[in-house]
């Protein structure tokens, strides 16, 4: 569970349609001024596991083998997450893959989420699975915009395209990647669309970064010129 109380508590809303805080525009009765968006969340809750919860053997082994690498364990609706520092990511990943308790030989997914107000704004998340032991774990690293994350594509070639997508969508710099190019967006795209400060509509950051270039692209009629 999250520790801090949240403004949009369901009980408050039910009893009082016009919420005392201007944060939520629930009821149509509230004035347009009440539509100001709530303050951006500071980051994921990353709830700590309960003390009496038994930890899976691979996490116990990880903590004994690399006690300094692990920042925190987190547990929520049946999923375990290991939060590590970017410098020890490769060490932890290799341990989880190669240790007998872990044997995470399958990298399901690599993704990220963006929490702009936080100093280390990105979470990069690795979803791992073991085809032999049939269990899952997630590794999470927190990085700032100017920090880099080492690539895990050497350990799991599956991460190759997935890390390219993280770079493309979030602009998290990944070092040691065999082929770091954009994957879904065009090669010459500016900006990273999945960032929270990227607008939902419109040509994106180009409009802000170089309006003249944006205007020029808008006025082009011949598609080959855009190429």
């Amino acid at each position, binding site marked *: 569970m999250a520790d801090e109380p949240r403004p949009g508590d369901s009980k408050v809303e039910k009893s009082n349609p016009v919420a005392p805080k201007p944060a939520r525009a629930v009821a149509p009765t509230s004035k347009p001024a009440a539509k100001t968006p709530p303050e951006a969340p500071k980051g*994921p809750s990353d709830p700590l596991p309960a003390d009496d919860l038994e930890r899976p053997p691979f996490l116990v082994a990880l903590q004994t083998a690399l006690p300094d690498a692990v920042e925190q364990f987190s547990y929520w609706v049946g999923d375990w997450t290991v939060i590590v520092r970017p410098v020890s990511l490769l060490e932890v990943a290799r341990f989880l893959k190669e240790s007998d308790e872990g044997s995470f030989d*399958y990298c*399901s997914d690599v993704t990220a989420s963006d929490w702009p107000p936080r100093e280390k704004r990105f979470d990069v998340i690795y979803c791992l699975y073991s085809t032999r032991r049939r269990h899952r774990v997630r590794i999470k690293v927190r990085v700032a915009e100017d920090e880099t994350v080492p690539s895990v594509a050497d350990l799991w*070639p599956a991460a190759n395209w997935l890390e390219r997508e993280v770079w493309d969508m979030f602009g998290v710099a990944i070092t040691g990647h065999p082929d770091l190019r954009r994957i879904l967006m065009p090669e010459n795209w500016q900006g990273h669309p999945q960032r929270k400060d990227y607008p939902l509509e419109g040509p994106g950051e180009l409009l802000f970064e170089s309006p003249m270039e944006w205007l020029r692209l808008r006025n082009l009629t011949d598609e080959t010129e855009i190429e």
Partner: protein
Amino acid sequence: MSNEPAPIFDTDELVINMGPQHPSTHGVLRIVLRLDGERVRDADVVVGYIHRGIEKLTENRDWTQIILLTDRMDYVAAASSNLGYCETVEKLMEVEVPRRAKYIRTILAELQRVASHCLWLGTHAMDIGAMTVFLYAFRERELILDLFEEYCGARLTYNSMRIGGLPLDIPTGWDRKVRAFCDVMDSKIQEYEELLTNNRIWLERTRGIGVISGQEATALGLCGPPLRGSGVYRDVRKDEPYAAYDEFDFDVPLGTNGDTYDRYLIRLEEFRQSLRIVRQAIDGLPDGPVMGKVPRLIKPKAGETYHAIESPKGELGYFIVSDGRSTNPYRLRVRPPSFCNLQGLKPLVIGHLVADVVALIGTIDIVLGEVDR
């Protein structure tokens, strides 16, 4: 006159572009091939031509509206995408789904698997040159689409599930029709087998083409039939049971050689296993409501989770982050099975002939709507 050979006979390597508009790439997929004669020496797979930003869109839609968006990812298996999304949100909210809803979901997901494999079989066979199979397979797919139409009114984008259950109970007599379809389908699978399984041309074109070992396939993150074709026992339905799969008997077919022919045999066997599951579910369909107790305003507590289902293409995972106070997800990530399988295309095609590239695109069964999202 010079004695130099005409340039047509030079032996340079040739770089050609296959796609994005090509009849055999199943959508807007582009592959840049470096060829030495007819042999592929190198390949670069370029995706993103129908990137619609569905993951970004979801951050601005409320939890129920997103079900519509999931329809549009894997548009030949929309019910599976619905199921994956609804199950993930239910896991995040810790909602209990009624048993009847679980059964009907399982039936829908398995009918969807049969429909998706029908489409795969038809297009894959036509890519290799067997026209008849295409017409046969689409004939049966039509029957499934009719069943879906009767259930939810749509034939392609079903929007057939809700968070906490199902929007509708099955119509009267629908279960009888599903059972009748299963009986029809049994004999049709036999027809496909007669056309292809021992067909000499089919064997020549698929045996030993695109061989990948189990270890490589696991490392590359392949999932679904391409992974099982290499002999790796991995099926989310068995390993991490969801919906009502833990209540049914079914087998997971495994390949031995990891070639295109094995992947074909596996999908044919999956037809039979799916029908087996559908029959068991129809026979044991429990009574009761189809919608669980879900608040009108869906707002999961702050937290994040990853949940995967076995879609016809492979492991379809959703990673959802909720900030606990807004009515839309903070982040929704789809782990698309086609995307991860497509990554395996490059190692598969290198060393093969250009004509086999078409067979190999077919064998990994991609839907570009899901690759690009």
